[in-house]
């Protein structure tokens, strides 16, 4: 039995009672009435003294429950903002003392305009009968929804984190958005007060907006996931969704439930479409996991759709349950893609390593070859230089000697010896020159070996020797020039040692004009007749020295008289820049 409370004073109405069957939506009986309605349940207690249990699976929106004249439950707020008991099953033990032979349960339900007001199923019986049913109802109406929301929220947060760390993965971002929207959209099933809004209606509109936005977010996710931009569709879907949102916000309170229905149907249709598209894409690109994913999603979406329109006789909550499954499947898809990316990276690393190794080996080989080539080149150049030296030095000396022997009047023993010694010295020059010629820092350093070699010998023979060697070069001189001067000095000193019978010797280097270098040797020996020595070729060594220095563009002056012999060799250096 039900009767509207026309007075609105919370007192049980006396008349206007109609028999109704539960669950009941009173708009059928009193359309346009949004006050409070009283329901009355009467029953005869068969065996008194036995405790009885009562369960009500929903009161839309809020209500109070009486057993006979005892109040056993009252929602927190029975005026706007109303408490929301519309999806909250309740269970009470009925105290035995309050029961009499004929009992009545009075339920006062306060409705609101935006949700169809009424009373859900009411059960009275022994606790053994009622409690399991209540538990089952609780599971369907609260726990499963809660689990669903938690899963969605978790996935949303997880992928939001991924996306924040890696913005170019758009699929992650869209998935996070879709999951979050879904969670918010469904949370109105769980809230039991309209807080923080002044009106429970705001909750419903809000959740509806979320669900409307969920739809394009999910589409965007799928498109991003399969890597196909549908620019036109993307451009179309957002305005449609926004228009829908505006409609949801501004629609008159009375039509909210109609909008909810339309929205739910279109949401499921879109989901089904997008799932089929995923399946089709997976099939076309022959990606097994995409196909699998598409199949799962399509199956679930189809199931959800059919369940929702009522073709499959399943409780509404199972419809909801398919969504976290879809989420989980999506999550799997993303995880699979992630792992395959990782595998690709690892494989790429291996390939890279192989390529690096190969390149390094090639490089090493090339470098070795180049090194070998350079070494060969150096050896070849060295050999060429040696050949040059032999040709220019020893070769030309030999040639000159042969010419002299052929065209001169033959050589006497001493001259022959002198020729041979010249050749020996030339050979020594070639040998010295072919070992690395040092760049002498100063004339002192240049003549140090010769000085050291002869000075002790002179000391031993009681010849006083004085060396005047400057610390700076007056110009730049080539190694062959210096070698020629060295040979000249060696020859001159040997002559002094052997023939001069001197007691005093001076050796000096000084600068000459035009960046020239004078090397002079003066002794106080017995002297010799210069012309005779040079002409009679008795001093083959000396005349060959003279020729050699002249070949270098220098000159050798010889002045000799008893008591003083002065030999001066002059060479001209190149400018430093040359």
């Amino acid at each position, binding site marked *: 039995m039900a009767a509207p409370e026309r007075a609105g004073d919370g007192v049980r109405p006396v008349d206007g009672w109609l028999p109704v069957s539960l669950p009941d939506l009173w708009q059928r009986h009193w359309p346009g009435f949004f006050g409070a309605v009283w329901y009355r349940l009467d029953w005869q207690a068969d065996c008194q003294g036995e405790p009885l249990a009562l369960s009500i699976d929903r009161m839309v929106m809020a209500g109070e429950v009486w057993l006979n004249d005892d109040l056993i439950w009252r929602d927190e707020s029975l005026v706007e903002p109303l408490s929301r008991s519309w999806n909250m099953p309740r269970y009470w033990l009925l105290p035995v003392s309050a029961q009499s032979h004929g009992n009545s349960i009075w339920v006062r339900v306060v409705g609101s305009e935006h949700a169809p007001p009424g009373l859900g199923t009411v059960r009275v019986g022994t606790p053994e009968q009622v409690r399991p049913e209540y538990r089952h109802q609780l599971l369907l109406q609260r726990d499963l929804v809660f689990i669903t929301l938690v899963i969605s929220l978790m996935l949303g947060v997880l992928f939001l984190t991924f996306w924040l760390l890696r913005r170019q993965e758009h699929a992650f971002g869209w998935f996070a958005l879709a999951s979050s929207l879904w969670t918010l959209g469904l949370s109105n099933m769980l809230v039991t007060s309209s807080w923080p809004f002044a009106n429970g209606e705001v909750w419903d509109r809000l959740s509806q907006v979320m669900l409307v936005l969920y739809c394009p977010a999910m589409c965007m996710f799928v498109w991003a996931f399969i890597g196909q931009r549908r620019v036109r569709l993307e451009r179309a879907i957002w305005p449609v969704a926004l228009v829908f949102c505006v409609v949801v916000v501004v629609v008159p309170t009375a039509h909210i439930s109609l909008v909810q229905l339309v929205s739910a149907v279109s949401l499921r249709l879109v989901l089904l479409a997008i799932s089929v598209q995923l399946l089709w894409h997976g099939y076309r690109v022959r990606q097994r996991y995409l196909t699998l994913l598409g199949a799962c999603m399509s199956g679930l979406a189809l199931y959800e759709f059919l369940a929702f329109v009522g073709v499959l006789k399943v409780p509404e909550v199972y419809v909801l349950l398919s969504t976290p499954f879809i989420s989980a499947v999506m999550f799997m898809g993303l995880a699979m893609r992630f792992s395959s990316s990782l595998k690709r990276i690892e494989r790429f690393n291996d390939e890279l390593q192989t390529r690096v190794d190969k390149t390094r080996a090639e490089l090493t080989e090339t470098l070795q070859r180049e090194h070998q080539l350079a070494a060969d080149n150096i050896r070849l150049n060295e050999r060429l230089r040696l050949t040059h030296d032999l040709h220019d030095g020893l070769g030309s000396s030999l040639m000159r000697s042969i010419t002299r022997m052929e065209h001169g009047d033959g050589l006497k023993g001493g001259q022959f010896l002198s020729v041979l010694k010249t050749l020996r010295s030339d050979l020594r020059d070639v040998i010295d020159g072919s070992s690395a010629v040092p760049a002498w820092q100063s004339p002192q350093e240049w003549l140090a070996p010769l000085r050291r070699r002869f*000075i002790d*010998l002179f000391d*031993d*023979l009681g010849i006083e020797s004085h060396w005047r060697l400057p610390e700076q070069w007056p110009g730049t001189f080539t190694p062959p020039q210096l070698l020629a001067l060295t040979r000249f000095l060696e020859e001159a000193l040997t002559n002094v040692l052997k023939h001069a019978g001197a007691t005093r010797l001076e050796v000096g280097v000084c600068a000459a004009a035009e960046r020239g270098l004078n090397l002079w040797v003066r002794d106080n020996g017995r002297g010799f007749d210069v012309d005779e020595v040079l002409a009679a070729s008795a001093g083959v060594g000396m005349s060959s020295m003279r020729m050699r220095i002249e070949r270098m563009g220098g000159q050798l002056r010889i002045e000799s008289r008893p008591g003083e012999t002065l030999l001066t060799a002059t060479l001209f250096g190149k400018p430093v820049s040359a």
Partner: protein
Amino acid sequence: MSTANHAPDDVLLPAPVLVVEDDPLMRQRLARVLGEIGYADEAVSFAVNLAEARAHVSQQPVAMVLVDLGLPDGNGIELIQELRAQDPALWILVISAWSTEEAILGALRAGATGYLLKERDDLEVSLSIRSVLRGGAPIDPFIARRILALLPTAPLHTPHDAGEIEALSARESEILEWVSRGLSNREIAEQLTISRYTVECHIKRIYRKLAVSSRTRAVSEARQRGLLP
């Protein structure tokens, strides 16, 4: 030294002399040079290869050995090492033909007392030998430079102890520095206001250090390879 002849200019001549040289002409030349210095013919004996030289040394004592480096049955450096190990006071002169810096340095490190270059005139060779016998130690500027690079220099004013026997003393490296600039032993002596004899002693000690350093290195190397305890 069993006997000692006296040369005309009063140089102490260590005898008997062994000349290890495979070239007959060079043998004649050295015999003549040694004769000019004042050696009697019977004080000079010859060996043409390492084997003969070893046999000769094992049979009778020698006071001075002239060793050619390139011998038919091996390198003279081996012989120098053996002789130096047997007799630290032996005079060992290297007679080297067209020799490189490395060959001379190698001979010195093996324990040679000095070196002669075959290519030089007789007069120079004989003067060199005489110089060695008078106590001089022939050393060329390039060799001096190499030794400076080869041996570590002990810090100044550090007392000599046995552990640092391989390091050059400050005075020794100073002398080598002057030698590398071409100064004669007499000039170095004047520079350092010491006697020429002291300079020559220093150079001989440098040679000994060179030989010792190469020997200790050989010993430590042998230890490392497990050839010696």
